[in-house]
């Protein structure tokens, strides 16, 4: 019997199918045409053609953030690959699994400055979890399996596979052999928390008088939201989420005290500053959370749970470091609470809660409405109302991102999708497309700004081709609002290059791409127009909302201050 042999391109697609990959997000070019040909000749894996490779990475990323499944990107050598860099970095910063299939010139040309040759492995080295230079057709399926394994396990992240053209061509063949049960001797991702450390943590938790549970993207990634909620309820502790962690506990939960950090709620930042014990779960004490590190929560003992040891005691020293998968560690903590006889009691932290409720009463997210100007906050509230709070909200970067995080309470994890770590303008729209591809029956909204949307606006064409009817809501303030806010607050109001003086007519633009465009410019129209926008199914709707261009995002931490030193509104501090 002869064993069937396949080209590298065929092996690649077979391997992807074997790993249950549904979609490849990509763009063709010379070095990967054999892969495109192999895609054409099968139907297990679909390919979605974007209009710019950066969008392919964000689309894959959005798909992954919503589904938990590793996204796949395909790009050609040279410019195709370098166009992926921003998307790879975006995924890397937020620990999102991604496999990037990077075409390369033929092996015998590598190193010779061949046409469209770039060292993509070298270019991407600081922003990947790992990368592979695939050098033979035989090893290809196993390299793919390894790449997925690395991307998805431990602290997830992007993995690049460089594929030289000569291992993809039809006359270079090998049998399909793939070891799905991957083992890598230098990599052991399944970590349980150290028992002694768990005991120490529980001792601190049960003795705490002012406990705060501070959680990040790790809870979302680990699908640990239910466990977290149970732990929060059992301890009756206040819980705050980072920008990446929103939805880790329902935004409507009584114990949720809002997002913390630069634009967090007063009660969240105050609670952190006054805590005696902070239980940090899958969060990394980013500088957008801590404000000045030296002034960060001086009186708190910190229990820090993270799968990545480098995140622990990197910026803020942990008193009880626990390295482990956050879902596993929460179970361990819960079991230890049982073991020491801890019983839930709704009167726990009574005094602490009364203090927190005083901060809550400051209502730090309140804002003033106006008779003739639409406030950006109102727009988010209107989106919430017309999507029943169930939409996937995919945001770009800027003021609109903060408003979305503040005014749309996320009931579930994975509902809030944004570039938290890298802050990539241009992320929101393609990310929303990736989500819509995965969940065609759900409301998928891209909340964006007049600046950000123009960084990947060409993807409206992709949406028409594949019928991806997301709703784009642009909070159009005719400026790079977040930049302008900083210029107002820190640079004496000198608006250097923060205007967008020649905005296109977004309505016409959407129409030109074959979609529906709407503009809203008066508060009285907001609700009815939003209702209409969300009632249109199967068409992409671009809602251009002209909002008050002077609005700032508040509260805002005061630069170089402690975590709870904030501007409440213009000229008013807490």
């Amino acid at each position, binding site marked *: 019997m002869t064993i069937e042999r396949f080209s590298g391109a065929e092996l690649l697609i077979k391997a992807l199918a074997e790993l249950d990959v549904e979609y490849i997000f990509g763009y063709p070019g010379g070095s990967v045409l054999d892969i495109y040909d192999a895609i054409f000749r099968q139907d297990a894996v679909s390919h979605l053609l974007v209009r710019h490779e950066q969008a392919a990475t964000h689309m894959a990323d959005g798909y992954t953030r919503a589904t938990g499944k590793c996204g796949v990107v395909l790009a050609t050598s040279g410019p195709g690959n370098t166009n992926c860099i921003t998307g790879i970095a975006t995924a890397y910063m937020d620990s999102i699994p991604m496999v990037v299939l990077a075409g390369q010139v033929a092996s015998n040309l590598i190193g010779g400055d061949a046409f469209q040759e770039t060292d993509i*492995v070298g270019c991407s080295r600081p922003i990947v979890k790992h990368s592979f*230079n695939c050098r033979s057709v035989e090893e290809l399926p196993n390299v793919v399996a390894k790449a997925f394994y690395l991307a998805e396990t431990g602290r997830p992240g992007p993995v690049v596979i460089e594929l030289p053209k000569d291992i993809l061509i039809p006359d270079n063949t090998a049998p399909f052999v793939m070891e799905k049960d991957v083992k890598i001797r230098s990599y052991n991702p399944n970590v349980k928390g150290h028992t002694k450390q768990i005991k120490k943590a529980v001792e601190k938790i049960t003795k705490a008088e002012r406990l705060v549970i501070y959680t990040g993207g790790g809870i979302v990634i680990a699908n640990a939201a239910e466990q977290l909620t149970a732990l929060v309820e059992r301890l009756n502790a206040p819980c705050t989420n980072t920008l990446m962690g929103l939805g880790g506990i329902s935004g409507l939960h009584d114990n949720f005290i809002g997002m913390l950090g630069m634009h967090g709620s007063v009660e969240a930042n105050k609670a952190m500053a006054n805590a005696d014990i902070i239980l940090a779960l899958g969060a990394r004490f980013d500088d957008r959370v801590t404000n000045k590190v030296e002034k960060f929560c001086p009186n708190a003992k910190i229990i820090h749970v993270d799968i990545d*040891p*480098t995140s622990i005691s990197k910026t803020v020293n942990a008193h009880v470091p626990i390295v482990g998968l956050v879902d596993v560690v929460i179970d361990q903590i819960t079991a230890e609470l049982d073991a020491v006889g801890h019983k839930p009691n709704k009167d726990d932290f009574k005094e602490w809660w009364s203090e927190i409720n005083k901060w809550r009463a400051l209502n730090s997210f309140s804002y003033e409405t106006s008779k003739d100007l639409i406030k950006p906050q109102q727009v988010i509230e209107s989106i919430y109302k017309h999507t029943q709070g169930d939409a996937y909200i995919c945001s770009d970067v800027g003021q609109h991102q903060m408003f979305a995080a503040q005014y749309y309470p996320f009931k579930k994890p994975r509902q809030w999708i944004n570039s938290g770590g890298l802050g990539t303008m241009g992320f929101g729209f393609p990310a929303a497309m990736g989500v819509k591809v995965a969940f065609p029956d759900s409301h998928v909204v891209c909340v964006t700004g007049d600046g950000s949307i123009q960084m990947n606006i060409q993807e409206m064409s992709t949406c028409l081709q594949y019928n991806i009817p997301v709703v784009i809501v642009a909070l159009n303030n005719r400026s790079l609002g977040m930049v302008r806010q900083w210029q107002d607050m820190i640079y004496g109001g000198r608006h250097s290059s923060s205007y967008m003086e020649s905005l296109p007519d977004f309505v016409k633009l959407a129409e030109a791409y074959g979609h529906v465009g709407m503009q809203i410019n008066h508060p009285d129209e907001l609700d009815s127009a939003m209702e209409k926008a969300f009632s249109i199914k199967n068409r992409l709707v671009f809602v251009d909302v002209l909002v008050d261009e002077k609005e700032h995002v508040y509260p805002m931490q005061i630069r170089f201050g402690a975590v709870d030193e904030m501007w409440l509104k213009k000229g008013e501090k807490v």
Partner: protein
Amino acid sequence: MRRILSILLENEPGALSRIVGLFSQRAFNIESLCVAATDEPTLSRITISTFGDDKVLEQITKQVNKLIDVIKVADLTERPHIEREIVLVKVLAMNNKTRTEVKRIADIFRGDIVDVGKQIYTVQLTGDEDKISSFIDVLNHETEIIEVVRSGTVGIARGEKALRV
């Protein structure tokens, strides 16, 4: 504080560049770096001499460990260990007096003259960093140094302790 890290990693293309990239990307210092395959050909061993306070070293160790290719990392300076470096020094040896003097210094330091030219001696010496530095100082005093090549430090723990898979 000066530290010596021993790193055992997969002997694969790109592995070294990941280590070096990590150090530059995170602004960690590299004083010297040695790399070669081990007796087990699938493994390489890197010795990095670096410096930084405890917090920095903790990050370096963790970050290096996090690289997928890396199997083990040890801080040799934590325990009794042996450090060696080799140096080749090319010096001017124009006249008898200098030649005798260079030979004498080499003998005192237990170095060897490994190449002799009309006006040139090349001296080889092994030892720890301090010994090598003072050797170079002394030679420099006596004659003109034309070229110095140091291998960088390699090290191994004393006693039973071994860095193996």
